[in-house]
């Protein structure tokens, strides 16, 4: 009964390396989050308001891209190896993609953080959406490109492992966790094409000065072509844990393997042809295309609701196995002492709330009410900032012991940590949503204006700000507890069985699911057709309007000290 590290020491080393990068990004990003929460509520300001945007870019990139995706590549490697029950085909390839993604992430982080040091003539204050005409130092875009290519290689590595396995097992169903990894990666290949073209063809040449201008709407559209599927790229590792780990932690088994497969196939099909729902307010895209994007988005509710049903059913099954009774009372039979279980359960509960506020975002007409307000960060701190981030932290309490062979330093501290995240996020995201409803903007260091006051419908703006500052502080403390708990676990002595790592078979297994679900070629082909249908006409009209390279020069934010030059440029841009 050896654990993962004893069976696959080389793979465990790579996964540990991925998680180390991930948690480092989490720690720095959480600190930036605290700085923002205190700065924009005017509780404590020690950076200049100009530097706020550097910090905000660092926060968004380090948390939404580095923390989440490095956790994902580590988790997926673990999932492929342990569900195929074989090591990676060539560990050198595995280390190669780890090296490439890490170098890319470091390049991007250096370009951003250099913005805090005036003596270095480099910056990337472009926010994590890196919209043109805001321009970053070339190092930022090069780092991004390396990072994306690294994830492609990681996907290739998992596909190679699967091919080897298929050679030995020609007739078996794809093991569920590997199925999840492969469908997620197919979606990722399809969707990162957009951002790769945007970065390599347009933004890199433009930041080097090889071409003078960009077509901002084209690069925005290519960004959002990737920018919606990326949210499922964050979410799928959380789903993988909710479907395959959470039922076990609850004491039961996954309710239905076929349903889980259907959900992942639906995400492959529907994730990409919806990106325009982030551009409801972009001029230059016809309303009809926006309407199609909205319709597709509403279809995406289906896999989310299927997930809610399957996961809750599995957890309830677990509770009843543990002796739970009644309509509601079974909740009490769940293993609340286990931080891995409680963290994931709380994350799931918050995801439900995030889903509701997401439907407001998705509705084309109601979107106008909350567009670019604090409502939006309120929404995505529930989804990526909690459903994903908290599931990853909670999952680590179960996963890390398998990678190190050492027990978790403290379960009570872990429990306190996940509950603290929940409470902190209740305060912060509730206030952000309500502040957004009364029009308080996002992405600003100075939300107050002269001769104008926001009028909170319920309570006061001061209360909302207090809630954001309090919530942000609790969230930051929660990350501190998490990081210390993991660090202290790393210096424990190795033991025989640090954690029960067995995963029971689903109640309704793969044999009951139609074979066609495993036909990855078919689903990929349909996904490609849907993307072509959704994007050909809008892209053609965007390029037809302003050309491939547009006519907009950059706003070189790294000479931001030179305000006058910036003003001139802005005037040029507007003219």
């Amino acid at each position, binding site marked *: 009964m050896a654990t993962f590290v004893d069976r696959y020491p080389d793979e465990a080393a790579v996964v540990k390396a991925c998680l180390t990068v991930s948690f480092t990004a989490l720690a720095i990003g959480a600190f930036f989050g605290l700085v923002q929460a205190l700065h924009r509520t005017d509780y404590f300001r020690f950076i200049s308001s100009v530097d706020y945007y550097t910090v905000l870019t660092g926060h968004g990139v380090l948390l939404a891209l580095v923390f989440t995706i490095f956790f994902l590549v580590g988790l997926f490697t673990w999932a492929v190896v342990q569900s195929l029950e074989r090591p990676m085909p060539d560990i050198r390839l595995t280390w190669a993609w780890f090296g490439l993604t890490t170098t890319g992430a470091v390049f991007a982080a250096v370009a951003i953080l250099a913005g805090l040091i005036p003596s270095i003539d480099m910056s990337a204050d472009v926010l994590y959406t890196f919209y043109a005409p805001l321009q970053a130092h070339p190092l930022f875009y090069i780092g991004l490109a390396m990072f994306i290519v690294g994830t492609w290689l990681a996907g290739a590595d998992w596909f190679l492992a699967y091919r080897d396995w298929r050679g030995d097992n020609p007739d078996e169903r794809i093991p569920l966790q590997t199925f999840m990894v492969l469908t997620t990666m197919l979606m990722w290949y399809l969707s990162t094409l957009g951002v790769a073209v945007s970065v390599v063809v347009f933004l890199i040449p433009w930041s080097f000065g090889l071409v003078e201008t960009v077509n901002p709407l084209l690069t925005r559209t290519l960004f959002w072509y990737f920018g919606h599927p990326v949210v499922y790229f964050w979410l799928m590792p959380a789903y993988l844990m909710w479907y395959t780990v959470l039922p076990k932690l609850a004491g039961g088994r996954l309710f239905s393997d076929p349903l889980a497969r259907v959900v992942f196939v639906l995400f492959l099909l529907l994730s990409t042809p919806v990106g325009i729902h982030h551009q409801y307010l972009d001029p230059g895209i016809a309303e009809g295309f926006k309407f199609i994007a909205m319709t597709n988005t509403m279809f995406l509710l289906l896999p989310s609701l299927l997930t809610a049903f399957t996961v809750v059913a599995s957890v309830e099954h677990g509770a009843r196995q543990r002796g739970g009774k009644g309509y509601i009372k079974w909740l009490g039979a769940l293993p*609340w002492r286990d931080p891995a279980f*409680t963290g994931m359960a709380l994350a799931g509960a918050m995801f439900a709330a995030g889903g509701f506020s997401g439907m407001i975002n998705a509705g084309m007409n109601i979107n106008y009410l909350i567009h670019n307000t604090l409502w939006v960060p309120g929404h995505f701190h529930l989804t990526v900032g909690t459903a994903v981030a908290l599931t990853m932290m909670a999952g680590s309490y179960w996963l890390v012991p398998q990678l190190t062979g050492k027990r978790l330093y403290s379960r009570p501290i872990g429990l306190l940590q996940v509950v603290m995240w*929940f*409470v902190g996020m209740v*305060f912060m995201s509730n206030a952000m949503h309500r502040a957004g409803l009364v029009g308080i903007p996002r992405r600003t260091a100075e939300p107050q204006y002269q001769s104008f006051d926001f009028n909170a419908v319920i309570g006061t703006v001061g209360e909302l700000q207090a809630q954001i500052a309090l919530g942000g502080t609790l969230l930051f403390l929660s990350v501190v507890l998490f990081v210390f708990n993991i660090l202290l676990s790393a210096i424990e002595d190795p033991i025989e069985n640090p954690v029960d790592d067995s995963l029971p078979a689903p109640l309704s297994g793969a044999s009951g699911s139609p074979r066609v679900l495993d036909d990855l070629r078919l689903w990929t082909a349909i996904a490609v057709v849907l993307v072509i249908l959704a994007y050909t006409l809008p892209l053609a009209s965007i390029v037809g309007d302003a050309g491939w390279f547009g006519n907009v020069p950059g706003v070189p934010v790294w000479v931001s000290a030179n305000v006058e030059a910036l003003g001139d440029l802005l005037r040029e841009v507007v003219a």
Partner: protein
Amino acid sequence: MTLSRAQLLVLVAFSIPVAIELRVLFGFFGIDLPLVAVVAFEAVFLLLIAVAYMVGAEPKSATKH
């Protein structure tokens, strides 16, 4: 019903969004619930949970004697 310490913690955590949203709920009906009312509600709720916890814990220690 016996409450464990972990259940106590989770119950307290869940009471906070309920308390906060109470004002929004009352707001739907045009009632402006003052902040103190929410604080009072939360205090009462915490008290109730604390009592439930203590009552639940008692029989256990009683059987030990």
